[in-house]
């Protein structure tokens, strides 16, 4: 797509949307949001960039193939699922740090689980869309 307005806008929209997606991810436990929506928003940011600059440019920007995010996310989610076993609790028990951190808030194993979901969603959506768009070109 050769629209210079869209091109310029997407350059600014990409970081803003990514920031917004992280925001959604972090606030998910208390307000609307969460890993799934956050991941979708982040993928939309990249897809928008891909539409204006071409898929290859976005892949170069990403440096790694989005598919790599899938095992990383799955691993993170599985780790936070089984981490309680190490402390003697059943699988998927929520573990929480007592003191809230600035900006992020209370940290618990659920947050890492959500982060895993976030990464998997980005990985899956971008892998599917970029593969198909490369195939189309």
């Amino acid at each position: 797509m050769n629209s210079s307005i869209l091109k310029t806008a997407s350059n600014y929209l990409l970081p803003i949307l990514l920031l917004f997606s992280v925001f959604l991810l972090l606030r998910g436990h208390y307000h609307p949001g969460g890993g799934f929506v956050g991941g979708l928003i982040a993928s939309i940011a990249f897809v928008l960039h891909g539409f204006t600059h071409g898929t290859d440019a976005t892949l170069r920007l990403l440096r790694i193939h989005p598919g790599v995010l899938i095992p990383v996310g799955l691993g993170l989610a599985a780790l936070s699922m089984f981490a309680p076993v190490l402390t003697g609790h059943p699988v998927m028990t929520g573990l929480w740090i007592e003191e809230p951190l600035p900006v992020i808030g209370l940290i618990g194993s659920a947050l890492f689980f959500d982060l895993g979901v976030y990464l998997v969603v980005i990985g899956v959506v971008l892998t599917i869309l970029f593969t198909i768009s490369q195939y189309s070109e």
Partner: protein
Amino acid sequence: MLIAVLSGLIVSILYVPFGKYLKGRLSICVSLLPITLFAYFASFIPSIRGGNHVTFHYPWVPSLGVNFDFHLDGLSLLFSLLITGIGSLVFLYAAPYLQGHRYLDRFYAYLSLFMAAMLGVVLADNVLLLFIFWELTSISSFFLIGFNNDNADSRKSSLIALGITAGGGFFLMAGLILMGHLSGSYSIQEMLGTNEYLKSHALYGWILALVFAGAFTKSAQFPFHFWLPGAMKAPTPVSAYLHSATMVKAGIYLLARLNPVLGGTDYWMYPLVIVGGLTMLYSAFHSLFRTDLKAILAYSTIAALGILVFLIGIGTPESLLAASVFILVHALYKASLFLTTGVIDHETGTRDITQLGGLRKVLWPLSIAGVVAALSSAGVPLTFRFIGKDLIYEATLHTQGILPIVLTAVAVLTNIWVLYAGFLAGIKPFAGALPERYAHIHLPNPLMWLAPLLLALLGLLFGCFPFLVDGALLNPAARAILQAPIGTPLKIWHGFNPVLLLSGITLAIGTLLYVIRKPSSHNLAFVERFNTLSPRYIVGRIARFAKVISRRYTNTLHNGFLRVYLLRIIVFAVLLLGFRLFTGGAVSLTLNHLSPISAYEIIVAAILIGAIFLAVTTPSRLTAVVATSVIGYCICLQFVFYSAPDLAMTQFSIDTLTVVLFVLVLFRLPPFLNFANRSTRLRDWTVALAFGAVISLIAIQVLNQPFDEAVSRFYGDNAYTLAKGKNVVNVILVDFRGFDTMFEIVVLSIAAIGVFSLLKLRLKASEKE
């Protein structure tokens, strides 16, 4: 104990990274595993003497009642020693036998796995654990039987073996679960306490049928026997191991183990005696017509298994003692004969009995093994089988209820034929003149002839001095089957009685038969004429029939057109839901419960309807996609109105991405053409309207139901206290139903991998062109 059972499993896993270093001369090192295990199990002999037992408990999944519970009594020990003892010899024997084979490492990995599985079966006290190991033996034997995987026959045989034994395993699982459920415990030892309840329960017949199905398929009883001769396609050490001491004996073990739990009734006794008797006669008779050494041994093995089932069925203390003696005897002489055959095959390149003769001149130590094993299988006095055979006759003569004469006649006839088969396999290749072409043959690696010789001589040793194994092993084994002490010690000489007379008759007729009758391929052709009646042929027909059916079914239902799939799914859903809706009571269509409709809802609904019309009437694909996404956004707005922000946000993003995806895919499609004629459109309209109507009716129905707040109240109350979250939707996703989310992201990943590999692979293919 846990380590002892699982060590084979661990070794076979270690073969994956380190296997290539153990292919050459070092391959023999792995034999240390079964030898060590044999010594380990032998150390238990003193502690189980006199009917004691040892138990081990390791928790695994206690909440499901599945634990690593092992129970070592006489029966388990007898089997464990056979598995590891004969296993040691087979491991040693296979090293020179398969020397230089490309997949020797795999072979040992499969063999270790198989050994571990067999040990698990005979030691497990928990029936579910037993079942797991049981299936593991089926799977590992599949690999062993199909080891020569470049041979089509071999592949087919292993598939048949797997199909039959795993199919039986399926029934067995149902039977075991039924038993565990009814008796309230999955431990066999605890089931012993509730055996009277099990036997009087209405489902007792079902339990028996299911357990029998498992045991008969595994132990190759008629009419499931045909997988065993086919399994002879395996390398000979495998046949020796699987068919003398292990795989096929698993079914026998199961029957013996469950005898105190389920046995002692007519329903237990008659099927076993009849099936066992039929198997004995059928396969012993069949062994007369074979000319391939291994085929002869295969049929005589089936006959031996029949005898064992038959003896367990009779169920008297004598017959059970006879069974435990026969388990040991058969393992010794059959393994010896198999290993002898293996050497003959290895050296001469043939197993055709009509071709072989006079090998005693070149393979003299082996001829001793063969002849002693053959005499052993014949039950000549002073061999161990003599004692076993006497016990069998004693058991059949002393039965009450069922006719002793008939059973004894069956036993005598079978024994005569088995004797003939044994002579054919053990003596015939060594007797007579040596053909010119075999004159150059020399003795192979000592390991290969020592193993069968050792086994044959052991049979002789136990025959002369039965007290060596009686009190230590066989009596406790029979005791475990019966769950009561057995007084009679084994004796060589019982005095002049009908049993001795029967033994004499068996020997005389059998030897006479061997002298008179010469095996020839002509005989084989004779039996093959009746092939169309054989169970193997019938099962083959059933399998082919199933294939035809499934092909037709697939072609009709899965024709590859997405529109046809969709149409079928929707029509089916309409019929099912509609049926339930109209038979489920009066449909109330009152709209009183609904909240008042606001102006902006009407506007959104109007846009929605307009978008729908546009989507179904437009001649452009792109317009249709955009119209559909408008529909999606309108629905999202409804979510916003009814305060479901999480849902709305997700739906908005998904809709956006879907449009992108559609555009990308549509890009590749040919220009839009309208193929549908009037009647197709009419049909689609009808289906769509019917589906919409049904769903709307259901929606109105649902709204009229009183709303159950229990679930939402639970989450509302507990989200913060239990999971420290205020957004209930997200807390459900990451905490309460976290497992679901985990599996959902796994499914997503699989979908991504699928798309990626499908398209990338096709790219590669087109790049090549």
